[in-house]
């Protein structure tokens, strides 16, 4: 067991030595893999962050129901009962026009301006908290409420959030396509690197076959090479993403302070980082395996 482990470590060392035997070439390979992976992974991370923002802002969707200015107390009571019985509505809050004006005075510092008004321009309003549901049902509810008598306007407060979410879904698909294509590119890069390696080591492979090496023995260093190169490429991608995020966060901070909000881009989670590394390692291994399967049989001793 121990002995086998020592042997595998030896093979791994040979593989790593091969990566760095041409320092610049090896580094560039890793850089290319890193860049290829950082694009979809970075995009995914950005979308993840935006997603967080959306849920934070649209936590509980509300529908604001503004009544016409000539609505009477009777109308309002009738409407209140009607709304309370509606199956899709969880809770209803009434905001009288006088209260609304008072609130506006306090919160905006426009007391002077508002004080100068002849009459209260604000309508009575209901704030409606619907039961949790899909964007479409909320939209349908809004349409239904808008048609009620004495209702001037019904506004779905989080509509923009749903639109953004739809956009994010689109972005996620783009990221997925990008990830698929660039993964293929990674496999292709490894395939080619291993092909060149096999060519330069054809004499060693031939001799090894002649003196009794199994195919597994010959294959192993190439597979280790592919996996190690993939892993190093993954680490490179992680570094690219993390450094870019640090740069962006600086700017995002300044931006969100202007909007008096607290928004920072979160770095890649531990689980996601590990997934990225394992995935790139697997792709490197796969490329090497395909290449070895394709090219090793072509080298037969004569």
């Amino acid at each position: 067991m121990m002995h086998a482990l020592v042997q595998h470590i030896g093979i791994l060392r040979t593989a790593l030595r091969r990566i760095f035997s041409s320092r610049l070439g090896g580094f560039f390979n890793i850089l290319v893999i890193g860049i290829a992976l950082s694009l979809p992974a970075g995009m995914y991370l950005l979308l993840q962050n935006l997603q967080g923002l959306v849920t934070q802002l649209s936590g509980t969707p509300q529908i604001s129901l503004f009544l016409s200015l000539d609505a009477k107390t009777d109308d309002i009571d009738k409407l209140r009962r009607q709304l309370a019985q509606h199956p899709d509505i969880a809770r209803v809050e009434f905001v009288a026009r006088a209260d609304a004006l008072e609130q506006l005075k306090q919160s905006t510092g426009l007391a002077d301006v508002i004080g100068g008004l002849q009459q209260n321009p604000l309508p009575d309003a209901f704030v409606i908290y619907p039961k949790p549901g899909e964007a479409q049902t909320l939209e349908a509810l809004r349409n239904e409420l808008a048609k009620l008598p004495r209702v001037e306007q019904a506004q779905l407060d989080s509509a923009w959030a749903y639109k953004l979410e739809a956009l994010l879904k689109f972005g996620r698909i783009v990221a997925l396509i990008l990830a698929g294509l660039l993964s293929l590119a990674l496999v292709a890069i490894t395939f080619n690197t291993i092909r060149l390696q096999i060519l330069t080591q054809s004499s060693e492979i031939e001799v090894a076959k002649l003196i009794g090496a199994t195919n597994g023995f010959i294959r192993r260093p190439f597979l280790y090479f592919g996996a190690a190169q993939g892993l190093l490429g993954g680490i490179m991608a992680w570094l690219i993403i993390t450094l870019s995020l640090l740069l962006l966060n600086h700017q995002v901070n300044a931006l969100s302070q202007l909007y008096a909000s607290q928004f920072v881009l979160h770095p890649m989670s531990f689980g996601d980082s590990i997934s990225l590394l394992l995935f790139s390692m697997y792709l490197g291994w796969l490329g090497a395996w395909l290449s070895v399967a394709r090219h090793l049989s072509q080298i037969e001793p004569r």
Partner: protein
Amino acid sequence: MISFSQVNKRYPGGYQALKSVSFKIAEGEMVFLTGHSGAGKSTLLKLIAAIERPNSGSVLVNNQNVGVLKERALPYLRRNLGIIFQDHKLLFDRNVFDNVLLPLQICGFDHRESSKRVRAALDKVGLLKREKSNPIALSGGEQQRLCIARAIVNRPSILLADEPTGNLDAAYAQEIMAIFKSFHQVGATLLISTHDTSVLQDTRVRTIDLKNGELQTASLSSTSGGSAQTTSTGSGQA
């Protein structure tokens, strides 16, 4: 140990390298394979190591029909053989020591044991002092001896040598022959091909003589059968 029966080998393109060749080599025997260039000596050796497969007939090595051996089983056959190649097939990206180490790495020996064996093999061929050199810095004779060291480090029961003295002058050739004889004395089975019959002159050994891919019956004499007959079959290329 090695047994050919009615072996035919035809290369793609129609060239008939061996024509119904039959012979037996017993365990512990040392046999020379003679014949002019192109007589089929290399092909015969390649059939034993399953580098080539016969078109018909059977090649038995340790009672195993290597002509029909599965690809997966080949490595284990070859680990039992020590092969000394005409063109040495040394690796110039590593030193002498690591060249000899390769067969042991392939078989999975641990580090300490294999170092010991490599040094013993190098000592036997007189290259112990050159273990750090690159094989490219060795003379032709030394390269040949390095190839021998690599073939024997695994302690195979059968040694195959393809023209081991081919490009060497007489003194080197005698040296190499002496190494082979010492293996013979410790019980290894040897099959050595040569077109240069002069190295056999003072040796009483069995020879198998090939001519245009056919076995010359006259040469099928054993060690006890008299050396005069054995050595007279050379084609005079010496």
